[in-house]
């Protein structure tokens, strides 16, 4: 028997994982989400903070919307139950989604969340890391593109030692510019509130209120 711990490959869901998904279908009592897993995951209307009647699901989430949800349970038939109830979970507006191999997500988070904290601070971006390798990022387009470049470095060099230093070097050397992109001095935007406790880390207790 061969079991490979893959460096790439599809996301296999685990209970309590926080994931970023795209709404692919709206039914009368639930939505279907593409979370990059083998199957679409149903999000039932009772798993949301919204009070609604059957048939009103379409008023809350549309096809193409991006949501941050948590894996609640996996049943024997392969059905993936997800919920939107919890800190840092919800629908996101604005920003964009950047993808990363699910296997590299721990490198993006870093030890005790060190890497993601550094990224957040140095780019002034709000970041929600999905264990499925989908990363929601919001900020100035400059900030977003710097996060994208950092994530690209993690994707390509994630196995090599000294990653944190290299990312820090990249972010430090490019602070205030757009790195490999042309600098575009945009209007100053107010800093964002701290990111929500998307990632269960050692220091999640001191995280601020969720971004949603």
């Amino acid at each position, binding site marked *: 028997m061969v079991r490979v711990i893959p460096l790439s490959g599809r996301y296999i869901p685990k209970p309590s994982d926080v994931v970023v998904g795209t709404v692919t279908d709206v039914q009368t009592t639930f939505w279907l989400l593409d979370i990059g897993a083998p199957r679409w995951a149903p999000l039932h209307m009772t798993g949301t903070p919204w009070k609604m009647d059957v048939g009103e699901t379409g008023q809350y989430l549309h096809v193409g919307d991006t949501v941050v949800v948590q894996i609640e349970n996996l049943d024997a038939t392969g059905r993936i139950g997800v919920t939107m109830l919890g800190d840092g979970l919800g629908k996101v507006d604005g920003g964009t989604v950047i993808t990363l191999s699910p296997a590299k997500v721990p490198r993006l988070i870093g030890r005790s969340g060190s890497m993601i904290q550094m990224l957040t601070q140095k780019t002034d971006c709000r970041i929600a890391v999905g264990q499925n390798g989908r990363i929601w990022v919001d900020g100035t*387009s400059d900030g977003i593109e710097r996060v994208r470049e950092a994530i690209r470095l993690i994707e390509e060099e994630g196995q090599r030692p000294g990653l944190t230093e290299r990312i820090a070097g990249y972010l430090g050397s490019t602070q205030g510019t757009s790195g490999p*992109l*042309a600098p575009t001095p945009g209007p100053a935007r107010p800093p964002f509130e701290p990111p929500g406790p998307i990632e269960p880390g050692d220091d999640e207790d001191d995280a601020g209120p969720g971004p949603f």
Partner: protein
Amino acid sequence: MSNEVTAEILGTHILDLAREGRRLDGRGLDEYRAVSIEHGFVASADGSALARIGHSAVVCGVKLEPGKPFPDTPNAGVLTTNAELVPLSNPTFEPGPPHPRAIEVSRVIDRAIRAAEAIDLKKLCVTPGEKTWVCYVDVHVIDHSGNLIDTGSLAALAALTHATLPAKRFGIGEDSPLAVQHFPVETTFARLGDAIVVDPSFDEELACQGRLTIATDEAANVVAMQKGLVGAFSPEDVKSLAERAFRHGDRMRKLAIGG
């Protein structure tokens, strides 16, 4: 899952960036991804090339076999171009009969080769009305990361320019180079809001509001065009894109012909 749903915020972000003159991968609006061509990639073909534009990869193999000419063109060879978007190239492709998008890629590549008269078909004639060379151009997409038409046409031109007429194998004389007389290259653009970018990536193709391919030859002729996907271009857009296509075409042509 053939039902492709993409995060709307990704499309919005692509459009936001384009408004600032920027793109997801850091390119300028009028900049191609890295282009590379490996000539003679497949030894079993009479001409072949592996072309890459960014992460898109296409292998083209040219095979030449004796056959019958069409009754209405007894003095001319036969040229057929076929593109396959094999399921290994993208998660959204499924096995089965050719999808219309594969047929479109085939036909647009074929149209440029044919309209530019890239191959001197008369030179493929062996015995008028009876025997001629049939030139099969098979375009095999192995990694679809956007802009298949340009990648495919580049592979096809590279394969054709280095192809050999395998006369010896079929007892029709000595081998000779395939007579390529013109060099068509396709340049594809995509509309992202008011911006029009060259060489759209996979995500840009999903977010775009219309795609336009312009094929040019070495003598500054437009030889083929194809507007595809949902969206629109003004006549003024088309005129200015033709100028951009000439410029890109010259560079790509040199790469395809190569050494």
